[in-house]
Every structure is written in C-alpha cells, then in structure tokens.
C-alpha cells in the first residue's frame, strides 16, 4: 500500500442543482474544519434553480491553501448526467464514490471505486418522505466520513452548526449521515491512501465567512442607513445578509423603528439613484450589483462624480460580456468601473483581496465616499463573495466615522454665510458641502449634473468648466495618496515581481511557493485601490520583470499600470490572465510564469 496522504486532498461532489446537496457539502466542510484542518470550499453552480449539474470542491491542505485546485482526489459522483465527464477529473490513485447504478464499463482503472446504492438506501432507510431527496445527499457525507475517518463528534458539530436556526432538523440529518457511515463500515475496506487526522495550530481563531457576508457586515459597521438594490447573482447575498443583520442590530427594541431603510428597487438605475439621493441628503448609502447592473448605473455614476455625491457601490463581479456566465467568477469589470460613465469620469475603486478586506474595505468605503464626496466602488467577485473562506475573526473598528467636509449651521454662522459648494479652499480638491435641512439661509445650493461654477451656479463658461474639471483631478490625486496602500512582500529579494489584486491573492500565495521551489522566487505587490498608488511604479522600478496577474481576458490592470509607468519601465511588464470563469488556481500563475521565464515546468 502506498504511503498515507493525510489532510491534503480535494473532494469534488458532483450533484444536481436544487437537490439539497449544498447543505450536505457545508456539513462536510464544517465537520472537517472542526477537526482543526484548513478547508477551502468552492461552489461551482449553474444559473438554474433546479436540475442542472453543480459541483462543490472542498480542498483540504495542512498549509491552508485557499485557491481552487485543478486536481480532484475524491470524486463523489451523484449526477449521472456528468458521470463520464467527472471521472476524467480524478487523478490516478484517487477515489470515486458513486451511485452503484452508474455504469463503470468505460471507467479508468487507475482509481479506487466505492459504489454505493444511494437511491436504494434512501428509499429503504430514510423514513421522512418529504425530505428524502434532500437527506439522500447526507448519505454521502457519511460515506466520506467513513472513508476518511471523520469522527462522529465532528459530524455532529457540522450538522448542528449548519442547522443553527432549525434545531429540529439536526437528528434527521444525523440519521441520514449514519446510514452512509454504516454502509461504509459494513461493506468496504480501505483501498486508497487518503486520510484526515485532527490538527492543532492551523485554524484556531479562524472562522468561515463568505465575502458577501463580510461586505454586509462591513456596510453595517460602516454606518449605512439607506440601501437600494436590485437582485442579481452573485451580489444578492450582500443585501440579503445586510437585511438579516439589520433585523438583529438595527431595530430599536423600544419603538420598533428601523435604523436603516432598504429598498428593493425596480432596476439598477433606480437603485443607484436612490442611493445617490440619500448620499446627497447626508445618509451613508449604498447599492450592490454585478456587471449588468454596473452597465445600467453608468449614467448615475457620472452624476455622482460630477455633482460630487458620496455613495458606495459594491460590484460582485461575474463573467461578461452581456449576461455572460452569471454564476462564474471574473475580474473583468475593473477597467469599466474605474471610468464608469461618459465624459471624463473617474472613480475610486477598492479591491478587497480577502474576506477580511471585504469587511474592512466595505466598511471604510463609506468613509472614503464621505471624505472625497464621490462614488466609491468596492470590487469583489463571485469567488470571494459567494464561497466560504477561512479567515481570522474580523476586528472591531478602531475609529469613528469620517463624515468629511460638511458645514453645519454653526460653521455657516462663523463664515457669515460666505462659502462656495465647489470652492477649493483647502487646496486638496475636496470642497465643503451642506446637507439639505441645514437651518441657515446660506446653506441651500442647487446640485446639478450640468456645468457649474464654484458657487454651484449653472455656467457654460469655458474657464469655469476647465477649472472645475482640474479640481476634480486634484481631488482624485488627494484620494490616491490616502486610499489603502498596496501590500508589499519583497522578502524573496527577487528580480521578478508579481502584481495581483482581489481574489487572485489566494492563488498567488500558493504559486509563490511553487515558483520558489522551481528556482524562480517572486516578490509580490497586492493592489488594493484605484487610482494606482505611486508604490506600483516604485515596485516596477525595483524589479527587472513584473508579471501582472488578473482574471480577465484583456489584462485590464496590466494596461492601467502600463499607462501609469514612465516609458522606460513599460517594457518590464508581463501579463498573465485567467478568464474561464473558474476561480484561478495557483498553476494558472506558476505555469505560464515559468514558461515565460523559460523554466521547464
């Protein structure tokens, strides 16, 4: 028998969408996490309510790699429609747990098969008629537990945790798991090398959070009070979670008053319009959407920029163009979001690279919006937003809200009413505003998306127009220096650098290990905001070659960096792109990089 493979494996469950398999997968994930073993789940699901194939990949590594793996060790084949295709993904020596009825006639011979009569077991052993279909999935959790040696106590934890709000469901689910567990014990002896063993030191203090949960918590702690949204995958769960959290934390128990207003708008135009209206009136406001919604929001984004209204726009990116693949991940909105709207429009874009940053930047986005009086885009993606990620617990905010330059009645009294809405008195491009409702005769001004002078008066004057546009440039320049700086790791002391952002981060961390082992260690700059920090140019100047890695076809950030670099540095940049909708695996970075470095893979 080959040497045991302990705590280092990838399980792939191939099931049918809408059959309840996601619950089974989450129970399995939580059970393994409870053993102290790092987990990295990726849910690959169709744009469909019921019936199409869906896959759940659960990667387990002692190092805590969080990126998707492109190799499957253990296949749980529950869907006859994808059975033959799924078999091809299993690596030699791997495991296939499958419905006994599936034909193994043409199946490869270098993997270990454990056929289980799932349908028959469900019919004979699960008494609950209404839940039989859902509970059938739990049977495979039991089989996997038997196969890998997951302790019963961990399974119990997984089920209880998954059904926190439905304690009645715990026992029936455990019973179903027991059916699979017993079937394993009674019918199989171990033929493969995979095992799980409890670990210590890897997951202590860690929690499992989806990026959209983190973003919702960030918005809540960032003080959002007006939310307008239109449902769209993969962003819906941002607002759905926010609604759920608000029911708990934003309802005044004494009066029943809600300290937040959430509107499900008629479309994305209205959603962002409501958020901008609220931002103008002084509330912290937001909307959340994905690519198609961003397209619709272009007009209002320009108004927000030009009229200088704070608003936070979460874009949980999915694959485009157009409807694209609605349930697949991407980083292809970044170039568009950065300059969203006609005319010379440019926005602040925040780029969370972890779920912790979905929380932190999701929270701080409201400070940036208020401080710079402009729309702030938070660009997450489906991988970050809808998958569970292992993360350190988030930190309680250590600073109060920054509401920016707002003149109160007292301020206006002190200024004897002398002020100009778009007058740059501080020289940083950021002007003062008043909020509607300010009880001072000089408070009111007329906000417009048409040409205006320093006092917000309509003008078509050429100089006044250019002056204002130059000030807006100056304002973004101020912002550029105050936005979250890139995270640098030059500990490799390499002549090769790598720049990435967003959910690519996990794959970069893993690829750096591979690259170092292959004799090509790389330094790393992780971008966290647009406009680009000066650190980017400095980083490129310190490295002979810099690879920009991103999840879009056109190398959108590669292009932005090239535009920002002095001519003599432009030639140092290389582009690595991954754009098939699957979360980027480490090999999608290390393989092309080594190839371009002419190192045999």
């Amino acid at each position, binding site marked *: 028998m080959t040497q045991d493979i302990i705590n280092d494996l990838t399980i792939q469950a191939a099931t049918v969408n809408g059959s309840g398999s996601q619950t089974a997968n989450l129970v399995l994930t939580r059970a393994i996490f409870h053993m102290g073993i790092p987990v990295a789940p990726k849910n690959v699901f169709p744009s469909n309510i019921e019936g199409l194939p869906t896959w759940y990949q659960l990667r387990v590594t002692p190092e805590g790699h969080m990126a998707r793996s492109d190799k499957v060790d253990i296949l749980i084949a529950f869907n006859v429609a994808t059975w033959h295709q799924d078999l091809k993904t299993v690596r030699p020596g791997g495991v296939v747990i499958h419905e006994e009825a599936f034909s193994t006639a043409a199946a490869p011979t270098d993997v270990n098969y454990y056929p289980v009569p799932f349908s028959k077991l469900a019919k004979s052993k699960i008494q609950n008629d209404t839940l039989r279909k859902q509970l059938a999935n739990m049977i495979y959790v039991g089989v996997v537990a038997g196969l890998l040696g997951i302790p019963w106590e961990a399974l119990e934890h997984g089920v209880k945790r998954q059904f926190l709000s439905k304690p009645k469901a715990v026992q029936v689910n455990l019973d179903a798991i027991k059916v699979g567990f017993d079937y394993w014990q009674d019918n199989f002896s171990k033929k493969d090398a995979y095992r799980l063993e409890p670990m210590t030191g890897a997951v202590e203090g860690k*929690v*499992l959070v989806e990026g959209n949960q983190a973003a919702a918590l960030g918005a809540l702690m960032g003080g959002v009070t007006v939310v307008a949204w239109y449902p769209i995958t993969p962003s819906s769960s941002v607002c759905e979670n926010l609604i759920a959290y608000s029911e708990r934390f934003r309802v005044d128990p004494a009066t029943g008053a809600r300290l937040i207003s959430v509107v499900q*708008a008629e479309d994305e135009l*209205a959603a962002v319009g409501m958020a*901008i209206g609220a931002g103008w009136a*002084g509330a912290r406001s937001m909307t959340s959407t994905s690519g198609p919604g961003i397209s619709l929001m272009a007009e209002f984004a320009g108004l927000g920029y030009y009229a200088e209204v704070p608003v936070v726009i979460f874009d949980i990116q999915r694959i485009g163009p157009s409807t694209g693949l609605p349930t697949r991940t991407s980083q292809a909105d970044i170039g568009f979001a950065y300059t969203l709207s006609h005319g010379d429009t440019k926005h602040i874009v925040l780029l969370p690279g972890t779920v912790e940053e979905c929380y932190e930047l999701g929270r701080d986005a409201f400070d940036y919006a208020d401080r710079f009086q402009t729309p702030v885009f938070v660009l997450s993606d489906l991988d970050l937003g809808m998958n569970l990620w292992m993360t350190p*617990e988030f930190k309680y905010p250590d600073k109060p809200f920054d509401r920016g330059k707002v003149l109160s009645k007292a301020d206006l009294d002190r200024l004897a009413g002398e002020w100009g809405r778009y007058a740059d008195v501080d020289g940083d491009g950021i002007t003062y505003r008043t909020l509607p409702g300010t009880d001072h005769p000089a408070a009111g*001004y007329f906000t417009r998306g048409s040409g205006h002078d320093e006092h917000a008066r309509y003008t078509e004057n050429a100089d006044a127009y250019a002056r204002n546009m130059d000030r807006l440039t100056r304002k973004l320049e101020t912002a550029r220096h105050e936005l979250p700086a890139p995270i640098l790791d030059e500990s490799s002391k390499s002549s090769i650098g790598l720049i990435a952002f967003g959910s690519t981060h996990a794959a970069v961390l893993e690829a750096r290990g591979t690259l170092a082992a292959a004799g090509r260690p790389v330094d790393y700059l992780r971008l966290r905001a647009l406009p680009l920090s000066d650190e980017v140019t400095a980083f490129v100047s310190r490295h002979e070659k810099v690879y920009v890695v991103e999840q879009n076809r056109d190398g959108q950030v590669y292009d932005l960096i090239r535009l920002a670099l002095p001519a003599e540095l432009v030639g140092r940049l290389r582009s690595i792109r991954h754009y098939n909708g699957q979360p980027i695996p480490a090999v999608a970075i290390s393989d092309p990089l080594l190839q371009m470095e002419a190192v045999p893979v």
Partner: protein
Amino acid sequence: MSVTLNRIGLPRDAYKGAATTLCAGCGHNSITNHMIKALYELGVEPHRLAKMSGIGCSSKTPAYFVETAHGFNGVHGRMPALTTGAHLANRELLMLGVSGDGDTASIGLGQFMHMIRRNIDCTYIIEDNGTYGLTKGQFSATADLGSVQKKGAVNTFQPIDPCAVALTLGCSFVARSFSGDGKQVVPLIKAALAHRGTAIIDIISPCVTFNDHDGSTKSYSWVKDHEESIADVSFIPFFEEVQVDYEPGTIRDVELHDGSHILLKKLGEDHDPSDRRAAMRVIEEGRAAGHLVTGLLYLDTEMKDFATTEHIPVRPLKDLGEAELRMSKEQFAHFMSEFA
C-alpha cells in the same frame, strides 16, 4: 412701504429664485409663480424644502423658486429615485419634485410608476406640454392622438395619461390642472404638500414656442376652451380655522394628514374624490367628450406612505452616529463567534 410677512415671518420675495431662462410666456413660469405663492402662503421653512427634478425645461424650474432651499437637478427621468433616497435619508425634508412629460411619461415612466407604488411621501408636479422643448419640438408621450406638430406632422400614437396611470397604480393623490388656472393650481399644490404620500399633479402647461398652435391639444386656447373643472378647490391650512359658509351638500371637506383641509365645491356632477373608479370614469368621459377634466381626481388619506410602512424613524437617518449604527464590541465578538 410695508412688506407682508407670512406666518414664519418671511416676505414673498424669500420664496423667489433665480431669473427664469425659459421662453417668455412659457406655462412653466406660471407654475413657478403658483409654487412661490403656495409655499409662501403655507409658510414653508426654506431649509426644510428639497426641490428635486430630472432633465428638461420643467426640470430647470426648481432654480427659479426658493433660492435658499437645497435643490437637485439630476438625470433624465430619474427624479423619483433621487427623491426616494433623499426622503429616506431625512424624513423631515419636504420633498417637492418637478418633472415634465418627457421626463415622466417616456424615459422615467418606470420610476414614476414605482414611486407611486411605494407611496413615497412627496409632491410630484408634471409640467405637461406634450412636447420636447429643449430638443426643439418632438412629440412627447402625452401628446394626444391626432394632435399636430408645429411643422404639420400628426401624432399617430395613443397618449399616456399620467393621471390615469397613477390611478391604476393606486396613487394616493391624483390631480390635474392648467398652468393658467392659478385659482385651482395653488390650493392643489398646498394640498399635495400637506398630503403624506405620493401626490401627483399633472399640470397642462403650454409650450409657447413649439406647441401653442392650432391642432395642438396643449395650447393656451385649446385648454381655455376645453377645460372642465370638476370642483372648485380651496385649501385651509392647519394654522387657520375652517370658516366657510356653504349650503349643505354643496361642499366636500377632506382633512389631510397635518390637519389642513381641502374643500371641494361641487360645480356640475358631484365627484367623490375617494372613489377611484369614479375618477377613472371622469377622465375617460372627459376625453370622449373632448374635454380636459381638471381638479382633484382622487385622494386617499388612509394609505400609509413607504417610510411609515417600513418603520423608518422621523428623526433623520442621516443624523445617526456610531453609537446607534454599530453593534457593540460585545455583540460584535459574539456575532463573529457564530461563524466558527
């Protein structure tokens, strides 16, 4: 010379705005004056007023009244969204939206309808001239079938009637009027401002430059010849006592949310403004007879507005701070532990 002051001590001039840049004789300028009169007589505090608009000739007008109030001239057809957001941020604001027929019945029809559906507390005035003025005279969607453009083109499409649309959506306040009929427009504006919910007033407002000729049903002469008021409207604000002598059965008196009263004096056939189907019938019959029916068509003072339904506090959400909006450290720690 003494200046008359209103109940909060402001002269009428305090409700004026910048000089209009619209054409001389434009109906919109009359409406602006009606608004100034209504706001002055009501004694609205300028700082509590938020003037909202979209794009077009009509949408420029918020610059022409109450200069000291905040205003927002947004993007085409999107005034309802901006108004909704601003209202939710600060329920103490008096939201006054001004829109046009292009803004409302074409590019912004969806937002117009959804705002009504939600019953957002605001006054929504449509300055309706049946034509695109700023782009020089194209038909709008409220132009009547068969009406003629200045250069002779005939409209071959059915009109969208904002009042009929509003009624089908259960709008809580629906009125129609004519820019030249200040006696009717002013009390309607006051009542709309006093009403809690979406109040729609479709005001036919002739475009003297592009749509004031023979063959137009939005011209001064056509409206003057065809206007049929369903009732004389008068408005008694909450700070005045109702003192009207009338024969029993000739007046309907409806109390509004703030204690104001709207009095409707029967002219012809008695119209019950709480009867939505009757309102639809009045519009349809007027159209069939070639009349423009004006007045308060429908009023429902019972329907809850959005913020009330949603339990949004009257104290502005914009004023809430960290203490109210952030969970405590203990709550946060407990919340995080739920993700373990």
